[in-house]
């Protein structure tokens, strides 16, 4: 049984990324559950998607200390969800910072040194500055697929399966851009 979480800020494209993962894992012949929350929290709030796969999956959600993988689309969200990462797990972190409203209004400060702190506490991190790569691919919205490219280097699934899943889930008119984003992510952390 494996558990993954995609965490980020509403609007960053975690839902498409989870769709690609669901397709990928189901095609490996595994039982898969993908759980997401729609509605109010999506409006720029902290969002989380759970992906679980194995022989038979019961709970659609992931418990604290239960995630083998966390893909964080933003640094503060990496900090927020770190308690869900298994001590043996790995976290892909987009180094982008997006200030939440309490920081914008001055009610709170954006913490300094998040990545260093998580590493000091034993988290295995793979970091990537995904936004410039997404822009290089052609659109800032491709951050999600850049991060899938990074993730693909950490999972034991053939690249061709990833590409098939992308072709199946990404709309045709933006497919080439996303395939490029995937390759840029895949090569970024080698």
């Amino acid at each position, binding site marked *: 049984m494996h558990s993954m979480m995609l965490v980020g800020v509403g609007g960053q494209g975690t839902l498409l990324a989870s769709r690609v993962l669901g397709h990928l894992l189901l095609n490996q012949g595994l039982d*898969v559950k993908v*759980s997401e929350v729609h*509605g109010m929290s999506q409006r*720029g709030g902290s969002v989380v998607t759970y992906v679980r796969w194995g022989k038979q999956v019961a*709970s*659609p959600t992931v418990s*604290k200390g239960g995630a083998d993988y966390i893909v964080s689309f933003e640094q503060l969200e990496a900090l927020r969800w770190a308690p869900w990462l*298994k001590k043996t797990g790995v976290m892909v972190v987009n180094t982008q910072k997006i200030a939440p409203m309490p920081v914008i209004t001055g009610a709170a400060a954006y913490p300094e040194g998040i990545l260093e702190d998580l590493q000091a506490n034993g988290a295995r991190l793979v970091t990537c500055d995904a936004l410039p790569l997404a822009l290089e691919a052609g659109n800032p919205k491709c951050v999600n697929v850049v991060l899938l490219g990074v993730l693909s280097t950490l999972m034991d699934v053939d690249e061709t399966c990833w590409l098939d899943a992308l072709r199946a889930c990404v709309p045709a008119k933006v497919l080439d851009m996303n395939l490029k984003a995937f390759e840029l992510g895949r090569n970024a952390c080698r």
Partner: protein
Amino acid sequence: MKQLMLGNAAVARGTWEAGVRFASSYPGTPSTEITECISRFDDIYSEWAPNEKVAVEAAIGASLAGARAFSAMKHVGLNVAADPLFTVSYIGVNGGLVIAVADDPGMHSSQNEQDSRHYAQAAKLPMLEPADSGECLAFTKAAYELSERFDTPVLLRLTTRISHSQSAVEESDRFEAGVKDYVKDPAKNVMIPAHARPRHVLVEKRMAELAAYAEDCPFNRVEMGGKIGVICAGDTYQYAKEALGDGASYLKLGLVNPLPVNLIKDFCARFEKVYVLEEMDPVIETFCRANGLNVEGKALFSLCGEYSPELIASVLLGETAEGITSSLQAPGRPPVLCPGCPHRGVYFVLKKLKLTVSGDIGCYTLGVAAPLSALDTTVCMGASVSALHGFNKVRPESAQKSVAVIGDSTFMHSGITGLTDIVYNNGHSTVIILDNSITGMTGHQQNPTTGLTIKNQPAGKVDLIKLCEGIGVPSENIRVVHSYDLKGMEAALKEELAKEAPSVIIAQMPCALLKTVKHAPALRTDPDKCTGCKACFRIGCPAVTLNQNGKCEIDASLCVGCGLCSQICKFGAIGGAHNA
């Protein structure tokens, strides 16, 4: 071939496979995607109704006409539809009738976390509760057979985690249920007291028959394993399986009303200790206790919020898992109004004028958060208008210092009657209709004011101005203001609030997320002019940030050029296109 499907999409698929011909719903998280997915099947007539009461009544009509019919809503939507629900229970069905209701334990996107199982008990209706997408599809289909076999509407209960989780389903073909004959039958279909009295007797007989059916129906099953007995349904079945695995035995209920008394007694007899795991209210536990069974439930678990595998493992096994800890505190990231949101400027003006604001249900409820902090109250769909009327009747002086804010879709849902109350009873209140030309929070559904159907086909369009005039709001007191026009909004508000008569201000600007909306280029700040006064932060726009030099900086990846911040800046520091 198996494929991953959202629980809500699987319910939609189930209606299609069951031969449903008619679906009418009002959007509400977490139920919305059911009807959106149904709208993609051309074999089913589908529509967004103005509210859940109308939706269920329309579905009742379709059922009486002989077609299999469907309606979906969130838990609070069933409150709105409760009136027809309780009486259609007496009438029963011609074509099968299924009403899906999605509860939201934990309140991911709701104003309360009521437990809809009480409605099944109170309205005396069978209720099915699936535990994954495969069951969502199968139970929906089976619900139609149940409905026609027992001559009853059937409730299908979902929760957020079932509605919004994808799991594997196997599709099959559509059963062509056709349209049954319609035969006039007033004794069954006209609920006057003389007819309703014998119908009530039949309802009680039907419930007894359903209770007998529940004892060995295909929806309830026992899975024998370890020595702990667990009674559960829906998502808590999945959480319990995850936490306890083969260490427990399960009575997994799929038909959650009526409950099978003998099946439960037999199950309990096999174990020293039986736990009832159910989110929110102790419906099953209370039933067990009423039948003399000493089960454990809410003494150990909260009535509030969601269950989870970790909660069950912690309470029943004393096991906790720990992940990566950090000494750093993560500031919260609450949801916010989007960059370019037409509601933002309106709230800025309301706050500036220090008005009491009677709020409503929609994206614009986010105006409660800092720094806008604009709302005083929010109850339910439509309450902004009617509650303001009551407020101002008790405090007449407040009519000049208060407004209601309500979205276009919410106004059509439940605001019209409140405005009628103001006009009819000589109120002086001012109502702002936040008309963003769409139902926003639930993800862009058409509504009676948009001129498009659920399938984006041309439709009859309700004209808000004429509607308000028709109710009796004086024409000169109905104003349309562009939502981004801060000065225009302030002037209109001052004029309308001063009048001792009902007023309506329609703040008009389509939702910034609509694909049809063309955005202006991102703005930029002139660092030489910016004094770092932070006035622009008062609008609470995620694109307006503070840079390392203590000056305003516009995030070009978020900014849609709405210009609110530049209207507020007294130093002319914000403006111009980013690439100019």
